[in-house]
């Protein structure tokens, strides 16, 4: 057993956190109010090497493994206090681009990955639909029919992070209805393809510095060479390769956020005086601090274990799912309790805990609800 991270990784984590404190945090409140994704910050993230962190070096990435990417995401979320941008990054790098990296052809990688690593292009994933969420494969209605050297896509994708700003989307569509989940294929759809359009920007509870919309396909023409993997292998192969990354790396945002809220709330509790003494002296406040600390430490370990298993090439359906359940439920509890410490200020925009409270609510919904996670755990026991 060895619970230590390498010194390089600890140093890298600190440099990512500092980057986020310097370039992201100062405008986090305003971008949240404006519901604005900032292309300048995005470009800086590309220059710093974050956008292509886990892509191969030959395609402009940094070749980082899953653990490094997880730790970097945690540090970014902690420093940035910006769940929305952390989400936009994850949607771009992990669920948008990793299907190409893990399952794409050489040509597909050459065409897309370098531009996505630099930040010149933005990626997203189209899986969920208006009528299909937890039962993504079984209820999918978007269809792709082969016509000559093209596929014709019809349907719509819903709640797509980076929808309004994306240049290319990894889109899942039914190619053989009879085969159910085994009849779904994956396509790379560029925003300029004929028949593709983006719905209006959706207004959200939180994660407002990321943009979300519907994607609409009306006889959308996609060249056959833009299919990832073989026909009908999309959901299982691409999904399997990518979703456990998603459940690990994107969940790291919850850990970083929890850590920031804890530190911020302790600081607040030491400075805030009521009944003649700092509220940190009250057992009611100490109880909340201790409970959040223990859940933070346990969540972090669950997540790191899942990441290490990915890096060892081991499937981790149970580990990634239970890490997600534990961490995303813990961060909601943390946001509530750390909000209680802040009292009335928890309700005011100026305080990061207010934003975190709204942002973290997505955790148990996106990337598979807690209910789907529990089903996966139980099915694999």
């Amino acid at each position: 057993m060895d619970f230590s991270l390498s010194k390089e990784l600890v140093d890298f984590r600190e440099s990512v956190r500092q980057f986020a404190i310097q370039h992201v945090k100062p405008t986090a409140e305003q971008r949240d109010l404006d519901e604005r994704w900032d292309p300048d910050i995005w470009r800086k993230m590309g220059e710093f090497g974050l956008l292509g962190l886990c892509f191969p070096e030959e395609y402009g990435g940094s070749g980082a493994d899953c653990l490094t990417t997880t730790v970097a995401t945690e540090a970014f979320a902690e420093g940035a206090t910006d769940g929305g941008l952390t989400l936009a990054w994850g949607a771009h790098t992990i669920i948008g681009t990793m299907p190409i990296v893990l399952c794409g052809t050489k040509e597909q990688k050459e065409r897309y990955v370098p531009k996505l690593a630099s930040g010149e292009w933005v990626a997203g994933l189209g899986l969920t639909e208006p009528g299909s969420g937890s039962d993504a494969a079984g209820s999918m209605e978007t269809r792709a029919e082969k016509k000559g050297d093209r596929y014709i896509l019809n349907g719509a994708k819903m709640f797509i992070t980076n929808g309004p700003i994306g240049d290319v989307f990894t889109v899942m569509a039914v190619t053989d209805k009879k085969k159910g989940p085994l009849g779904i294929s994956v396509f790379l759809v560029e925003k300029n393809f004929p028949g593709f359009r983006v719905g209006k920007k959706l207004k959200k509870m939180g994660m407002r510095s990321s943009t979300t919309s519907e994607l609409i396909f009306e006889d959308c023409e996609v060249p056959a060479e833009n299919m990832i993997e073989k026909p009908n292998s999309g959901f299982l192969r691409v999904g399997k390769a990518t979703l456990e990354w998603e459940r690990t790396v994107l969940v790291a945002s919850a850990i970083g956020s929890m850590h920031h809220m804890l530190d911020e709330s302790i600081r607040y509790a030491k400075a805030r005086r009521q009944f003649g003494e700092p509220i940190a002296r009250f057992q009611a406040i100490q109880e909340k601090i201790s409970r959040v600390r223990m859940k933070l430490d346990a969540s972090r370990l669950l997540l790191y274990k899942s990441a290490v298993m990915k890096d060892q090439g081991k499937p981790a359906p149970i580990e990634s799912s239970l890490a997600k359940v534990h961490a995303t439920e813990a961060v909601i509890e943390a946001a509530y309790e750390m909000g209680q410490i802040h009292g009335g200020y928890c309700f005011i925009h100026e305080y990061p805990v207010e934003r975190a409270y709204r942002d973290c609510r997505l955790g148990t919904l996106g990337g598979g609800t807690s209910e789907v996670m529990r089903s996966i755990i139980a099915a694999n026991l």
Partner: protein
Amino acid sequence: MDFELNQEDKEFAEHFRRFCEKEIGAVAGEVDESGSVPRSHYEALGAIGYNGLLHRREFGGQEASIVQATVAQMILAEACGSTFFSVGASCGLFGGPVASYASAAQKKSILPTLLAGKLIGCLAVTEPDTGSDVSAIRTRAKRSANGFVLNGQKTFITNAPIGDYAVVLARLGEENADSKGSLSCFLVDLHLPGVTRGKAMRKMGLRASPTGELFFDNVELAAESLLGAPGQGFRMVMEAFAMERLALAAYCVGTMKACFDDSRRYSRERKAFGRPIAKHQSVAFMLADIKTKLEAAYLLLMETAWLVDRQRAEAVGGKSPSRLMHNGYVIDINARAAETKLLASTYAREVTNLAVQVHGGAGYMEEYRVCRLYRDIKIAEIGGGTSEIQKQIVAHAEIKRVGV
């Protein structure tokens, strides 16, 4: 990072698991009903090396790492909570302070017999009016011509009804004797004149681990009964409690493992509405929650055990650092142990409840193990410092960690 035990530890764990299942787990239900852990358990655990895991080789110990000891504790706890507690009180709570502070002669005469399971010890701190506020104890030792005279009363002491020796926390002296600095530990032979004990108390759980009172009425102690220096008692007891916290967390994880195994098996065999209950979502989700809490507590426990091993390795002149740098963070080891016990005991209490729920009416019957586990586990949120005390320890360290 590597979350797997090394090959040697895995083999040791498998070997010890086979032993525990056959010799301890198989009779745990009967032992619970009988109200006492058989003496042969102490001896068998001595022979296989469990009792001496954290003790020196010269006294019959194994000099194992904390990680190895923690793995073994989880396995024994899974087999039988009462055995885990009584043996732990004897060799850990009692054996720990003796190994650290007794004289060479005392160690030589007590430790080998203790580790062989032929002698039973206990740690006597709690009193009728003193629990969490340890420094308020009233048991008092006065100096006499030959040593000390001990008077007072202790309660809720694991192994008191059967113990041969106790480490007793008492105030030393008469003047200025109410400060924390007067607290001292004494090695007391429980067969001495003036020592009497109450009957084993009837408890909610852990019924085979005998618990009771100790009464000291002008007990004459030799001068060498004082462990360490006068006034060191509070620190000794806190050290013993810090190790106990890790052991209690291991007990909780072992119990959760037993709950998981039993619930998984039962829910696959038991049918309702035409299919195994494991196939019903509400039961399946309980299994998922049991697994999640088990895994979370296990990882936190193993990391803490690993950190304590590091802390020991970094000791200078016999003194271990109280804080360690770990992955760029400063970790207060004492607070981390408290946090680990807090999480493990909270989750284990929830998990035993889920396990009984999965078993339905069967879970209410003593025939099923989860019934006993549900009763037993409550002690983990009370003994070795209540959850409320653990929360204070964690919060104080946190408040110190973060600057204004």
